[in-house]
Structure formats: C-alpha cells, structure tokens
C-alpha cells in the first residue's frame, strides 16, 4: 500500500522539475527559430527597396508591358503582392527553378537584403504611386 503512495508522491514532486528541465532549454531555441522565420519575411525596408527598382521598373512599372523573349505575355503585376511570395519568386529565379532569362540574370545580382527590400516596397501598394 505504501509503495504506490510513495511512487505517486515522487512523481508529483518530480514532474514539475522534469517539465521545466525539458522546457527551459527548448524555449530559447524555439524563440530563435520563430524570430528567424519572421526576419526572413519582415526585415525588408520599403524605403531602401524604392531606391533599388532600377532593374524592375522598366517592365513591372509600365502598364500593360509585355515581355518578348522567349515568349510574349504580359509581365505580372507585383504591386500589392505578398512580400514573402515576391522574395521566394526572386530566390527561385536565382536558383534556376524559374526560367525567364532576364529575371534569372537580375535575381542573380540581388542579395537577400535587396530581395527583402524590394518585396517590402512592391508588397505595399500605395494609391498615390500606383495605378491599375
């Protein structure tokens, strides 16, 4: 009869210690992972991006512009697009996972920070500077 009671008491006393022992080291790692994920999508500087559009505006800043090589179609509207998607598109061009020759060359010249800045700039569509 006493053995189960002792065992129960040991478990009750030890359980919080075990939980905290497991929880304490994991917490900073989880926080770091969370902040790391946030940083990749939210560390773009829209104002800095506005100064880096030289290679974008010639196509994406002209209403109805069509790319001519290797196929003819309208370039996508990117104003107001999700910044995280813009960054991934640029990374995919840089990695060769998307094939448009001009976009591959341009993306290859961009740093991760450039991509984040441009994504922040284009992702925030402002009525003053944008038209449909």
């Amino acid at each position: 009869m006493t053995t189960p009671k002792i065992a129960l008491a040991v478990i009750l006393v030890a359980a919080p210690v075990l939980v905290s022992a497991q929880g304490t080291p994991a917490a900073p790692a989880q926080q770091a992972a969370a902040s790391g994920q946030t940083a990749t999508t939210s560390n773009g500087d829209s104002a800095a991006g506005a100064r880096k559009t030289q290679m974008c505006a010639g196509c994406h800043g002209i209403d109805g512009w069509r790319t001519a090589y290797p196929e003819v179609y309208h370039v996508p509207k990117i104003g107001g697009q999700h910044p995280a998607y813009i960054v991934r598109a640029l990374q995919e061009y840089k990695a060769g996972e998307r094939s448009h020759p001009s976009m591959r060359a341009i993306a290859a010249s961009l740093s991760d920070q450039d991509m984040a800045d441009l994504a922040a700039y284009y992702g925030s569509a402002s009525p003053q500077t944008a038209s449909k």
Partner: protein
Amino acid sequence: MNRVLTALLVVFCGSSVAIAADIRGGETKAKEVCQACHGLDGNSQTPDYPKLGGQQPDYLAKALRDYKSGQRKNPIMAGFAGSLSDKDIENVAAYYASQPSVLVVKH
C-alpha cells in the same frame, strides 16, 4: 478568290474560338482546384500563396503551363497544374484575371 475568302474566314473564326475563354468554366474549375489556397476571388490571405485576382491572364496561363511541364519547379503546383487541360488553364486564368484586384502596377 472565294477559296481565299473561305480560308480567311476559317482562320479568323478558328482563332477567335481558340482565344475565347470560358470564365464560368474557369470559376467551376477554380472552386475544385485553386480556391483552397488562392481563395475564390484570388486574393489569397496566406503570404506564401500569391494573389491572383486581376493578374494578367496570359501570365497566369504561362505560369500554369510551366508548372505542368516542369519548367517551373514547384511540387505543390505541379500536381494541381498537371490535372488541368490546356482549355482549363485558359479558363482558370481568364476567371482569376476577371476578379477584383488588389494588384497594381507600381510606378
């Protein structure tokens, strides 16, 4: 002369039929295949999934063809685009392009 006119008529009618997309057919397909991630109006609320509403229809069709052929590499979209016929692609692209857009050309 009549043959030439007939030939021109056939070419003209054929091309206009090929160009005309079925927006309602595209909506039906979008409900089946695209809506869960991109939303029925194409204005996805999930940052990883691009907004499609009001996007250029020929760009959307090109993207779907590239996913289907594997020229654009994305395991999720390869599966969905692979299930679409060429006609489905034109229809879905026309449908999303016809939706109210938050996308703009930023100057």
